[in-house]
């Protein structure tokens, strides 16, 4: 079994960036060997729609940018639909009281707020007996929105409602 094939299987299955150390330890190879194998793999995938790219010393197998449009349709989304809905309501109404959000969503609100906070999309701070919820800088970065365009997004959401 060739080293690069073993590492190929690992990178494929992991679906997240892995460091040389992580890979070396998992497959029981020297870091040097892992590094060389990755170079070989990169060559193998040159003509493919997939590439092995590097960021911050970690390696990940992903679809090349020019094929991303096709791939997008089939890749599952990382947030559940119900969470996206809750996040969209927060983004539109922010700052919104948790108690007001509860009126819109029912008791799911506690779980959703906890999860969205854990994922870094929202911040909460105490306000009287409830919490006041706003979106974070990470939220704006994630959706590629300039925070200054906050109102533009609201307008966009509003317009979409009238169609």
């Amino acid at each position, binding site marked *: 079994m060739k080293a690069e094939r073993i590492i190929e299987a690992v990178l494929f299955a992991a*679906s997240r960036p892995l460091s040389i150390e992580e890979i070396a330890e998992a497959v029981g190879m020297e870091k040097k060997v892992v590094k060389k194998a990755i170079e070989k793999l990169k060559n193998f995938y040159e003509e493919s729609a997939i590439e092995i790219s590097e960021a911050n010393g970690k390696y990940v197998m992903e679809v090349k940018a020019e094929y991303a449009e096709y791939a997008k349709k089939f890749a599952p*989304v*990382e947030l559940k639909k119900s969470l996206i*809905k809750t996040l*969209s309501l927060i983004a539109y109404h922010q700052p919104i009281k948790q108690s007001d959000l509860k009126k819109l969503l029912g008791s799911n609100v506690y779980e959703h707020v906890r999860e969205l906070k854990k994922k870094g999309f929202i911040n909460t701070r105490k306000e009287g*007996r409830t919490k006041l919820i706003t979106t974070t800088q990470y939220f704006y970065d*994630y*959706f590629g929105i300039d925070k200054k365009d906050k109102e533009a997004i609201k307008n966009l*959401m509003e317009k*979409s409602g009238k169609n």
Partner: protein
Amino acid sequence: MKEEVILHILSEKENLYRKENIGKYIEIIEDKIFIKDGFDRAIATVFELVIEKQINPWEIDLAAFSSLYLKKVKEKGINLIVAGKILFLAWKILRLQSEEMIKEMERKEEEEIYFDDIPDWYGDDELFLQTQRIMKDEIVLKPKIRRKAKRKVTLVELINAFEEAKEEIVKKRAKKRKIISPVKMEDSTHKENIEDDIKRVMEKLSKLNGRAVPLKELFDEKDIIAIILPLLFLAKDGVIEIWQENFPYGEIFIKLKHEG
């Protein structure tokens, strides 16, 4: 009362199923302050905790609660809105209890009935052997190794979700309104006639020179239902007086108050 429940929960926190939920409980309790009566609020709080699945429904003795509540109603009277809410919560708990009971019964039924029944494969050497091998983990299905990469949510998806969320909220509200609306519809159909009815009542009453008369002398039985609402309006505005001699079956009298 609110503080008492919070203190109770804080002191019992070691026994809570999920200690990290304390904040949530306190929020629920604080939400309950709209019920002014401490006793009612305590009951509602306990019931809500059950419904939020923080307390096992079977730990709630509904019969004990209801006799406690009845005693309280006898002593202090009843607030119908609060009682309605508590009744609704109790009903929900009863349903939770029966669901649990049905599940439990289903389990028992299967456990008891099939004890002596021997599966077919015990008679077949190969099937029996293979089954044993699976049980010993010697052979099992092997899951395929595939990617499970998930992608980011796009801005368009966020906007679409907003759209859907709004529609759902509107639908939910419409559904709530629908439950109340039959009454409202009736109101509106009568509204057009109400002024005519008031006129009719006033015409009849004005002929009596301020004398009190039994309602049924003035109107046919079938009319009474239609004029009840105008009568109430007039009474509320202080134009007429309505009273009943003997409750609940006695004669109802009406009388035009002296004008000016």
